[in-house]
């Protein structure tokens, strides 16, 4: 579904990704793991056209590296950004409706209503609290709302950035269960997580990023057994181990 070749991304004069090649097949959950600053979020932002980049990005056999961010949503790529980025003074329902901002007209209105029901079915709590201001909800509820809002755009590929960040372990379990449910419904997901253990629980495959390059890839099960990954997960650079030998 998504193929990335030799992708470079820049923040000013700083190179944040230096030649990343990876892919995601339809219906897969793929995790991107690595220490803080490894380039995980940058990769999501580069896919979405939010940072300056160079390289090849193919989505559903179409070259999209030059397609602007707002048009990518229409093509079927939705991102749930780190820190949720909700509209705090707006209600839950308004936030969700904003997720469908690309759709207009009478038919669209009916479709949006259907999609709202689907999101409410997935997250019954959001239905209960549809009138509540987003900013007053708990971290876990906000994360659900952020995912729900992304789903309102009817994405084919969902990019999830650190959905477990700042959440209590029990809430993290809940979010992971939601991700698994989305996969069961056929959604394709690229999941960025610093919490490697959590990510590898739901993903089938993963890529390990270290300072802007992929250094390992494989099935989630194999990577969970990898001692290097444990170290990457702990946020420690692996070089200190090899050089100390």
């Amino acid at each position, binding site marked *: 579904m998504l*193929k990335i*070749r*030799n992708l470079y991304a820049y923040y000013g004069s700083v190179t944040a990704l*230096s*030649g990343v*090649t*990876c*892919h995601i097949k339809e219906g897969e959950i793929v995790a991107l793991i690595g220490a803080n600053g490894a380039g995980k979020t940058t990769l999501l932002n580069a896919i979405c056209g939010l940072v300056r980049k160079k390289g090849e990005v193919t989505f559903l056999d179409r070259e999209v590296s030059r397609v602007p961010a707002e048009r990518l949503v229409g093509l079927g790529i939705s991102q749930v950004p780190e820190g949720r980025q909700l509209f705090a003074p707006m209600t839950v329902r308004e936030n969700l409706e904003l997720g469908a901002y690309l759709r207009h007209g009478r038919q669209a209105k009916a479709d949006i209503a259907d999609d709202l029901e689907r999101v409410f079915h997935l997250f019954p709590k959001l239905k209960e609290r549809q009138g509540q201001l987003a900013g007053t909800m708990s971290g876990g509820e906000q994360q659900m709302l952020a995912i729900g809002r992304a789903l309102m755009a009817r994405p084919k590929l969902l990019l999830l950035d650190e959905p477990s960040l700042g959440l209590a372990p029990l809430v993290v379990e809940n979010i992971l269960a939601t991700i698994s449910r989305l996969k069961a419904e056929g959604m394709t997901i690229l999941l960025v997580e610093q919490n490697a253990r959590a990510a590898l629980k739901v993903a089938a495959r993963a*890529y390990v990023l*270290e300072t802007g*390059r*992929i*250094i*390992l*890839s*494989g099935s989630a099960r*194999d*990577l969970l*057994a*990898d*001692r*290097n990954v444990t170290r990457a997960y702990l946020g420690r650079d*692996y*070089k200190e*181990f*090899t050089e*100390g*030998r």
Partner: protein
Amino acid sequence: MRQPEFEAISPEELELLQLERLQSTLTRAYRQVKFYRRRLDEAGLTPESVQALADVARLPLTTREDLSEHYPYGLFAVPLKDIVRIISSPGTTDRPLVVGYANQDVKLWLELLARLYTAAGVTSEDIVQLVIPPGLANWRRDLMAGAEYLGASVIPAATLNFAKELMVMRDYKTSVLVTTPPLARHLISVMDRMGLTPAELSLRKALLVAAPLPFAVRREIEDTLRVDIATAYGITEVMGPGLAYGCAASQGFHFSADHFYPEIIDPATGAVLPPGEEGELVITTLSTVAFPLLRFRSGDKTALNQDPCSCGRTLPRLTGILGRVDAICSVGGIKVHPDHLRALLREALGGHLPRHSWRVVEEEGLEVLEVNLALEEALFSDEVKALEGLCQRVRRHLQDHLGLASHINLKEGLEEEKR
């Protein structure tokens, strides 16, 4: 097919998978192995220099001598505490070549072996008997573990005499024999002597490994033992027998190109040759964690065939092993480098190496190394017993170090054979 998603992968998907694995292998090798970092730096390259598979040709080649120079752990890419297996294979000197496996490497190795057995038509219902000499210890271990992983009932290689092996084969109702081509022929001659017929055995398959299998020999074994024959190719430095394996269509060896990148080069110039042309097989690992190898020269002569195979696998095929590009010779599958052999002879003879020659001879299907030594003054004794003792010492030394059988002859007026 064990893993159709990889064994029958489309060429486009394979290309992308190889590229992403290659780039991560290069990054790991460059960051974690000083030797590769130095090599790439000297060539003015970085891991980022490889943006397409064709760029592999720009990377420096790695030889067995490089492995030897970094004995024992210099080319490991993970800390020693992450290594779960350390294996050795004979090198060009008395220093063995050392290969390390991390946890995931062991898993990959088993999965590749399961691919091999599945392609050979072996299932968990089979009784698999290994008849592999101790000199091929790595093949023994690999093929035993693979058959067990598959769930078959495995009779490990023993050091029984061949008549006993055949008794076990008959009484235990072995359905798959795993051995080398020379040993298969030897077993046939022992069966003949014992008056044992194939009808008394339950064999349906023979997996023949570790040595080339000429067509005529294949036919002979197939007809005499009344079995289907399967083959495999592997080298110890690159994960052993699962590297490439035959299929029911019997057209060469499918190369596990999702985990190893193959190239065929002109051994003299190093230039990459197009598919179909014969040259030396060069391998780059794409998935191994502990011991990445960049463009490792196998020394084996073959060609790549990219045509689709009627078995349904899309993995490219090696057309067969057509010989060596270097001086290494095979004695019943055991690889012997002339320099190593000379060093062993010198050791056994107390430091003096007279004029000598050697060749591989066949005895009842078995391959034996025949060594002729010139009876020079330094070795001479007028006691027959002393001369016999000398031959025995050399024979035992070769047996101890290489695990192979040899005949040592002392000859007067021997001309040295250039090898």
